């Protein structure tokens, strides 16, 4: 077991990247991810991390550099937020198609506009379908552990896909938390040397990123899709081994008092910890309520999710993003489609809240619970959504 120290989550994320012994960091600072990049540049400057730090001129360049570095078989890390993700969007989509195992932390922040530096999930939902493995971290320790997990899974030859770790901007990035570091030997045992499936080398030339005619394009996309779907077993075994190494176990879907609960909250990201306290409070008042947290966003863990919600009559889906003109938040849309084929469909209510870092308190979640129960009594099949706590509605 490593040292347990109090540290800002961004700094501990950078320390985890250092422990992963990356060969290169290419990133452009953007709020609220800045401290991760700054700390990594310090670590390289001070000689604590033997890596190339490439201070790129834009996020588009950051991800392009990552592509080149990964293509020659070197370990590379980047991170960004919001507008930065939007700027690198073009390259983000190409990385999983090229099967380059890049690891990126996305410090989740609203996409403009109005211009906002605060946390929500609109940035990550903009690249939901891009083919990266995507996981949520709920606190500083999970960020640290999942950086090492991300390299392990991404670089596994069976997977060979980029991994994105979602951490809520400010709510996690700027908070000081106790984090238990890993011992050097634990990292060495858990994270083997990167051996790429293909690498650019003059001795055995290959072409990467070639174009695909319509006659081969669909097959190429299916190959990419299958790789993502099949990565789930490797994800699960990497989390299992992480638990066996440091004693903390992670799962695609994590639950709290869900087995006997009539009503379940469904959350992603740091909301989970708040809602777990709401569950305690609501249970004390005699309510049959539980929590299901989605940790693995892509590939979506259908089997585990169905199992976690199987006894519930009502689902309250909490979204931190909105699909404009669609049927509520992206998580709710996903959940509705998952339960569509079930014999006994649960009632689903959906709240959009916490946009641009707006606080959502325990009391707010209690109100959402009461509203949901009322709604279900009056119109159980109403498939709508609600912006929680918005003025004028």
């Amino acid at each position, binding site marked *: 077991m490593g040292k347990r120290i109090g540290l800002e989550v961004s700094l501990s994320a950078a320390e985890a990247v250092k422990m992963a012994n990356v060969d290169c960091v290419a990133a452009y600072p953007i709020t609220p991810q800045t401290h991760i990049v700054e700390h990594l540049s310090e670590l390289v400057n001070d000689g604590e991390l033997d890596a190339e730090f490439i201070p790129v001129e834009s996020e588009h360049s950051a991800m392009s550099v990552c592509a080149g570095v990964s293509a020659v078989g070197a370990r590379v890390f980047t991170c960004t937020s919001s507008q930065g993700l939007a700027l690198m969007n073009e390259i983000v989509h190409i990385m999983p198609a*090229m099967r380059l195992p890049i690891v990126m932390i996305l410090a989740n922040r609203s996409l403009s506009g109005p211009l906002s530096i605060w946390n929500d999930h609109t940035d990550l939902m903009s690249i939901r379908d891009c083919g990266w493995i995507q996981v949520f971290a709920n606190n500083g320790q999970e960020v640290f552990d999942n950086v090492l997990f991300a390299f392990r899974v991404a670089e596994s030859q069976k997977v060979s896909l980029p991994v994105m770790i979602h951490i809520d901007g400010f709510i996690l990035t700027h908070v000081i938390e106790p984090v238990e570091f890993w011992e050097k030997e634990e990292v060495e045992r858990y994270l083997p040397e990167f051996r790429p*499936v293909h690498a650019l080398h003059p001795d055995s030339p*290959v072409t*990467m990123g070639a174009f695909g005619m319509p006659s*081969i394009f669909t097959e*190429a996309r299916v*190959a990419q899709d299958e790789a993502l779907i099949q990565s789930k077993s490797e994800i699960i075994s990497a989390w299992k081994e992480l638990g066996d190494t440091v004693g903390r176990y992670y799962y695609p879907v994590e639950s709290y008092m869900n087995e006997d609960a009539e009503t379940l909250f469904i959350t992603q990201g740091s909301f989970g910890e708040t809602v777990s306290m709401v569950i305690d409070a609501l249970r004390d008042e005699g309510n049959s309520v539980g929590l299901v947290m989605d940790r693995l966003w892509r590939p979506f863990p259908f089997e585990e999710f169905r199992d976690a919600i199987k006894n519930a009559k009502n689902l309250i889906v909490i979204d931190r993003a909105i699909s404009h003109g669609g049927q509520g938040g992206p998580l709710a849309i996903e959940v509705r489609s998952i339960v569509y084929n079930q014999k006994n469909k649960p009632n689903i209510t959906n709240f959009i809240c916490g946009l641009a870092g707006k606080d959502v308190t325990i009391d707010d979640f209690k109100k959402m619970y009461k509203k949901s129960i009322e709604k279900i009594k009056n119109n159980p099949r109403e498939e709508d959504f609600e912006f929680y706590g918005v003025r004028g509605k």
Partner: protein
Amino acid sequence: MTKTKVDLSWQEIEVGGVVVNPGNAAEYKTGDWRSIRPVWDKKRCVKCGVCYIFCPDAAINEIEDGYFEADLFYCKGCGICAHECPTQAIKMVEEEE
């Protein structure tokens, strides 16, 4: 991923769509894009090689007697050779003719 590989199933595609036999674009017949093809008039041709230099696909070769001809496996029929020829020795003719 060249056209010679149209029969590949998704399982047969190399990880990441990597092409492990580089330079295989040479196997790709771009000649079937062509609707017009260049024809040389040897009476006008002064063997200057401007067509050879300007061809964007390197599809023009020098032949034994010092004249030039298009490699119709690659020639897309763009007409740049005919446009650049200083003695108007090259005519673009419809493929049907």
